[in-house]
């Protein structure tokens, strides 16, 4: 599988140097994506998901640093590229749709100028006629009227700004798109439209997508593969159907249980307790203090990721002894 992978992340470590010691925000994370694959990366605040997305672009800034591992993009490790090679790679091969499109656009430049900047940085010497045609095509592709090219960001609605950012991010047909909570500030109807647009773009380009978010519902609507992060670790990754209908990690199940549906009224249950501080991680499994199924081994020995089904890996001591996740009640969890 790694032979066909367009993005292959191996044992990635990202550390924030803090006054109380290094905080391991991304902790030996590995996964691979084929072209056209849609990975949804989910986790609570502080689980390392945004740090992960930033690291994939090699945009990690002090006090954060990439402390180890490899990020292979089409076989080449972006962590060893020269600054010049890295600039050429970003946008052309891997592009980021950041959180909060409002702050991603330059407020004093018309959209056209910002789009031209991005294209010319990679493909200098394009004529004005070529650029205009390209910009019209890019805007149309994300569902915007080409006339918005001559507007300033403040003249656009939130959904239009998010689309404009998507048009810039995909202007050079990247092979991998990293989208970090692209719809977090949008109304539900606009959110649905923007996600559908992202889906069409992805399919048209044949790109792989890493969608980062904390809403399992949104991830399930979009992704074909779901990865769950907890305290910097990828604790489970697998096909979306298996992850929703038969997750293996107790944390994944609790995340799903905390989502309110609209079919039956029931008590809303969150996950008791808080994630551990990343500076002083507990021995053993980082989820053990909150896990309703934790046993002695979980508190002393860190579980390694193991394959439980095709393309389905989980880091939990319940396996391989158990065939599936044993039933439990969230109320039994200790805070």
């Amino acid at each position: 599988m790694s032979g066909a992978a367009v993005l292959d992340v191996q044992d990635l470590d990202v550390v924030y140097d803090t006054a109380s010691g290094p905080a391991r925000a991304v902790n030996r994370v590995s996964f691979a994506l084929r072209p056209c694959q849609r990975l949804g990366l989910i986790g609570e605040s502080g689980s390392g998901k945004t740090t992960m997305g930033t690291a994939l672009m090699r945009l990690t800034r002090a006090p954060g640093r990439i402390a180890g591992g490899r990020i292979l993009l089409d076989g080449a490790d972006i962590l060893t590229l020269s600054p010049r090679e890295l600039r050429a790679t970003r946008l052309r091969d891997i592009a980021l749709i950041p959180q909060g499109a409002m702050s991603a656009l330059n407020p004093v430049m018309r959209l056209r100028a910002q789009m031209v900047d991005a294209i010319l940085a990679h493909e200098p010497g394009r004529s004005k006629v070529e650029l205009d045609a390209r910009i019209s095509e890019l805007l149309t592709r994300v569902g915007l009227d080409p006339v918005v090219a001559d507007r300033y960001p403040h003249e656009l609605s939130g959904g239009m700004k998010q689309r404009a950012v998507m048009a810039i991010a995909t202007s050079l047909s990247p092979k991998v798109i990293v989208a970090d909570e692209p719809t977090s500030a949008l109304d539900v109807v606009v959110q649905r439209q923007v996600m559908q647009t992202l889906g069409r773009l992805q399919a048209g380009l044949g790109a792989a997508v890493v969608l980062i978010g904390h809403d399992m519902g949104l991830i399930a609507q979009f992704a074909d593969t779901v990865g769950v992060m907890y305290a910097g670790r990828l604790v489970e990754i697998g096909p979306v159907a298996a992850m929703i209908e038969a997750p293996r990690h107790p944390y994944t199940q609790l995340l799903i249980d905390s989502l309110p549906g609209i079919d039956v009224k029931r008590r809303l249950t969150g996950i008791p307790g808080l994630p551990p501080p990343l500076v002083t991680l507990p021995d053993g499994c980082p989820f053990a203090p909150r896990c309703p199924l934790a046993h002695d081994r979980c508190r002393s020995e860190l579980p390694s990721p193991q394959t439980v089904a095709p393309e389905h890996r989980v880091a939990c001591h319940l396996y391989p002894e158990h065939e599936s996740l044993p039933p439990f009640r969230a109320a039994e969890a200790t805070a």
Partner: protein
Amino acid sequence: MTAPLVELRGVKQVYGGFTALDTLTLSVPDRAATLAIAGESGSGKTTLARILLGFIEPTQGEVRYRGKDIATMTKAERFEFRREVQPIFQDPFDVFNPFYRIDHVLEMPLFRFGLARTKAEARPLIEDALERVGLRKQDTLGRFPHELSGGQRQRIMVARAVLLRPRLIVADEPVSMVDASLRATILDEIRDLNRNLGIAFVYITHDLTTAFQICDDIVVLYQGKVAEAGAVERVIGAPKHPYSQLLVSSIPLPDLSRRWGDEGMEVPAEQSDRRSDGCRFAPRCPHVMAKCWSVDPARSLADPDRAVACHLDTDGAPLSGEDIAQVFTEGDANEAATHA
């Protein structure tokens, strides 16, 4: 019959030339009701919250609290209203003064409303309120706001509201800034306050799933007007207004049998430039008819416990402003009759 807890009669709010709320008539019965006000940005839901809290006086119309017009309340009545109707705001990062410890945030309102005179008197009340929202005193008292997590801060705001033994809590997007798991916990605690202490709440949100879970009734606002109102099982479970249908179909559910797919939507997500003199939703409506552009649909009672403002719903009996205010109470009366 006792007067409703809160009653809005023909309330209109105009900012400059923009009408944020348009002749809204609505009532919250005085029986520990749980009412959701749902809509997108620009629907007028935050304006409605500010009017319910008495923060702004509407341009037109009246707001009655337990039968009294809040604009003409005496100073003493106004003081009581301020204690009985408590807000919880959206952003747990903005509402605290960073220079005061949590103790001060919780003591001040007790002193202000004369529920405690000394710190010693305040202490047990504060500890009880903290416990009700799932906080431990050793984790919170004596600390500064920046030492608490976003979830803890938001629960402090809930505790602060509960301390004053209110009749009504108006919560404007109280959990939009916290994670899904914590969201569930905090909303469950608010629902518990309603069950155990009989506090009514108005939950203002754009999130229909949480509205469905914690509220009995819902009002869907579109551009300052009621599109649909009634029991959540009706309005969210089987929406009739095309706008409610659009909202419900856009909920991201973790259900693979209800995936959106990538095809475009049949309706524009955002307001187009074309203005309608009739139904405000006409420019986005997939079922728009000629008369929608010129005639504003009257609300009608589609079911015993649901009202809809749409020309498609011609079977329902038209409702007057007075009638619509009674939808929730009458719905319950019918329910009670069936149970009896």
